[in-house]
C-alpha cells in the first residue's frame, strides 16, 4: 500500500505540474490551452534529439524548455489572441488550441517519426527505500521539483507585484488595464510560464516514457483531470493537489484492480469528485479553504 501511495505521489507530481500549466494560463486569461500536453512533448523531443547529437543534458534540457516557452507564446499569439480580438467572449479558442495541438504533434511526428526515441536517464539508477517501499531517484526528483515549483509559484502569485498583477488581471482584465497593466504582456508571460511548467514535467517523465511525439495526448488529458479534480481553475496550486489525488488513485487502481485500470479509473474519480465538489476539491470556494471575515469587520 505504501508503494502505491509513494508511486502515486511521484506520478501525481507530474500530472500536477501539467495541471498547473493548464491552470496558470487559464487563471490569467480564462483560456484553456489544449496544446499544453504537446508543449510538454516539445521539451522531451528536443532534449532527446540534442542529447543524442552529443550535447550535454543540461544544455539540451534548457533548449527544450526554451522551445516549449516559445511555442507556448506562439500558441497564444496565433490560436488565442486573434479570436479574442475579434470577440472577447468567443469560445473559438476551444477549437483553435486543439488545432494548434494537432499541428504541433503532427509536425513532431513528421520531424522525428512516430516511434519512441531514447531519453537520457536522470537519477534512474538510484533507489531509495522508504519503509517497505522503494522510490527511484527520478521519482524523488519529480516530487521535490513539483513541490518547489508549486510553492514557488504560490509565493510569487501572492507576494510579488507581478503575481498580484496576475491576480488583478485574472479578476478583472479591463480594470487591470485601467490601472496601467498591459494585459497582453501579462497573458504572454502566463503562457510562457505555463509552457515551462509543462516542459519541466516532460523532463521529469521523459526517462520513464521515452521521447514520443504522441506523449502529449495522454499527459495533457491527465493534466486536465488534475486541474479539474483539484479546482485549479480558481487557484493554480490546487491543480497540484488534484494531480497528487489523481496519481494515487491511478496507481492504486493499477495495483488493486488491474494493470490497465489507470486508463479509465481516473475518469470515474473525476466524475465523482465533480458531483461532490463541482469546483474541485481544493478550490478557493470550498468552505474549508475560503478566507474568513475578520470579526472586527462584521457589521
Amino acid at each position, binding site marked *: 500500500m505504501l508503494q502505491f501511495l509513494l508511486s502515486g505521489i511521484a506520478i501525481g507530481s507530474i500530472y500536477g505540474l501539467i495541471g498547473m500549466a493548464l491552470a496558470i494560463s487559464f487563471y490569467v486569461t480564462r483560456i484553456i490551452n489544449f496544446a499544453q500536453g504537446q508543449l510538454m512533448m516539445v521539451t522531451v523531443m528536443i532534449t532527446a534529439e540534442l542529447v543524442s547529437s552529443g550535447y550535454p543534458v543540461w544544455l539540451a534540457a534548457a533548449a527544450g524548455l526554451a522551445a516549449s516557452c516559445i511555442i507556448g507564446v506562439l500558441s497564444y499569439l496565433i490560436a488565442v489572441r486573434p479570436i479574442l480580438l475579434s470577440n472577447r467572449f468567443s469560445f473559438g479558442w476551444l477549437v483553435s488550441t486543439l488545432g494548434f495541438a494537432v499541428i504541433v504533434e503532427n509536425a513532431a511526428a513528421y520531424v522525428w517519426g512516430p516511434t519512441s526515441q531514447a531519453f537520457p536517464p536522470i537519477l534512474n539508477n538510484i533507489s531509495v527505500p522508504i519503509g517497505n517501499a522503494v522510490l527511484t531517484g527520478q521519482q524523488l526528483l519529480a516530487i521535490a521539483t513539483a513541490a518547489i515549483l508549486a510553492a514557488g509559484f504560490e509565493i510569487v502569485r501572492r507576494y510579488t507585484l507581478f503575481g*498580484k498583477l496576475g*491576480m488583478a488581471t485574472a*479578476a*478583472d482584465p479591463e480594470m487591470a*488595464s485601467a*490601472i*496601467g497593466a498591459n*494585459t497582453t504582456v501579462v497573458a504572454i508571460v502566463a503562457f510562457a510560464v505555463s509552457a515551462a511548467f509543462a516542459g519541466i514535467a516532460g523532463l521529469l517523465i521523459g526517462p520513464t516514457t521515452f521521447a514520443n511525439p504522441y506523449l502529449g495526448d495522454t499527459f495533457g488529458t491527465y493534466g486536465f483531470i488534475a486541474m479539474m479534480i483539484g479546482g485549479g481553475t480558481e487557484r493554480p496550486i490546487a491543480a497540484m493537489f488534484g494531480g497528487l489525488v489523481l496519481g494515487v488513485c491511478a496507481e492504486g487502481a493499477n495495483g488493486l484492480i488491474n494493470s490497465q485500470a489507470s486508463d479509465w479509473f481516473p475518469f470515474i474519480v473525476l466524475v465523482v469528485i465533480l458531483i461532490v465538489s463541482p469546483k474541485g476539491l481544493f478550490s478557493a470556494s470550498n468552505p474549508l479553504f475560503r478566507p474568513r*471575515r*475578520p470579526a472586527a469587520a462584521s457589521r
Partner: protein
Amino acid sequence: MNEQSSPVLEISSLSAGYGRFDVVRDIGLSVGKGEAVALLGPNGAGKTTVLRAIMGLVKQRRGLVRIGATNVSDLPTHRIARGLAAIAPEGRRLFLDQSVEDNLLLGALHLRRDQARVERLLTSVYDLFPVLRNYRHRLSSFLSGGEQQMVAIGRMLMSDPEIMLLDEPSVALSPVAVDIVVKAMLELRKRGASLLLVEQRIDVATRVCDRLYVMTHGEIVEEMTPDTVRAGGMSILSKYLG
C-alpha cells in the same frame, strides 16, 4: 474653466459607442487644471461612456481627446492609465481577493521604480481616509460599500494622474459615507487635483464642482455653474433629469 487655468482635459467632437451604435455624439467639454467639472444626466444619457472613452475602454469613432499636451485618442488604455488619467469606476471594481494596500499599490503600478513617490502617495491616501490605514491588510471584499469606495478613490490617487475620473462615487452609499466621499473630493480640490465627476445627485455635484454639464440622449445639452442651479432652484435641471 477658470480664466487662468489651462485645460488639463479637452474633448472635442467626440463620438463613441458599442457595436454599431453611438452612445455619445459630438461631445465637447474641458476641465481646467485644478478644476472640478460634473457630468449630470439621467440613466442612459451616456455619462459613463464619456469616462470610458477618455480611458480608452470604449472605441472612439470620431473626435479628439487630449490630456495635457497628449492626444490620447489612439493610445491603449494601459498607456493612458500611466499618469495621464485614472478612474474610480462605477461599482468600484476593486480586486476583491486582494488586500486594501495591495489594491492601492496596484494603482501605482507605473511608479513601481520610484518607491519614495509610491510611499508618499500611500501616505497621502491614508491621510485622506485614515480608516484605510487600520484596514490595510484586510481583504477588500470584507469592507463596507463606503470603505470600498474609499479604496477605489485611493487607488485612483495612487497613479498620480493629471485628471481624475469619478463615476457616481455616491451611488448606493449611506448618507454618512456620501459625506465622507464628498469631503474627500473637496480635499482633493484643495490639493490641486483636476476632477471630472459623473453624478446623478445634483447636491453632490454642486458642492464639489465649479461647472456642470448636463447630458441627455448622448449629447451635452446645457452647461451651467452651481450658482446658476442654486439661484434657479433644482427645477432648472428637472426638465433634463426627470
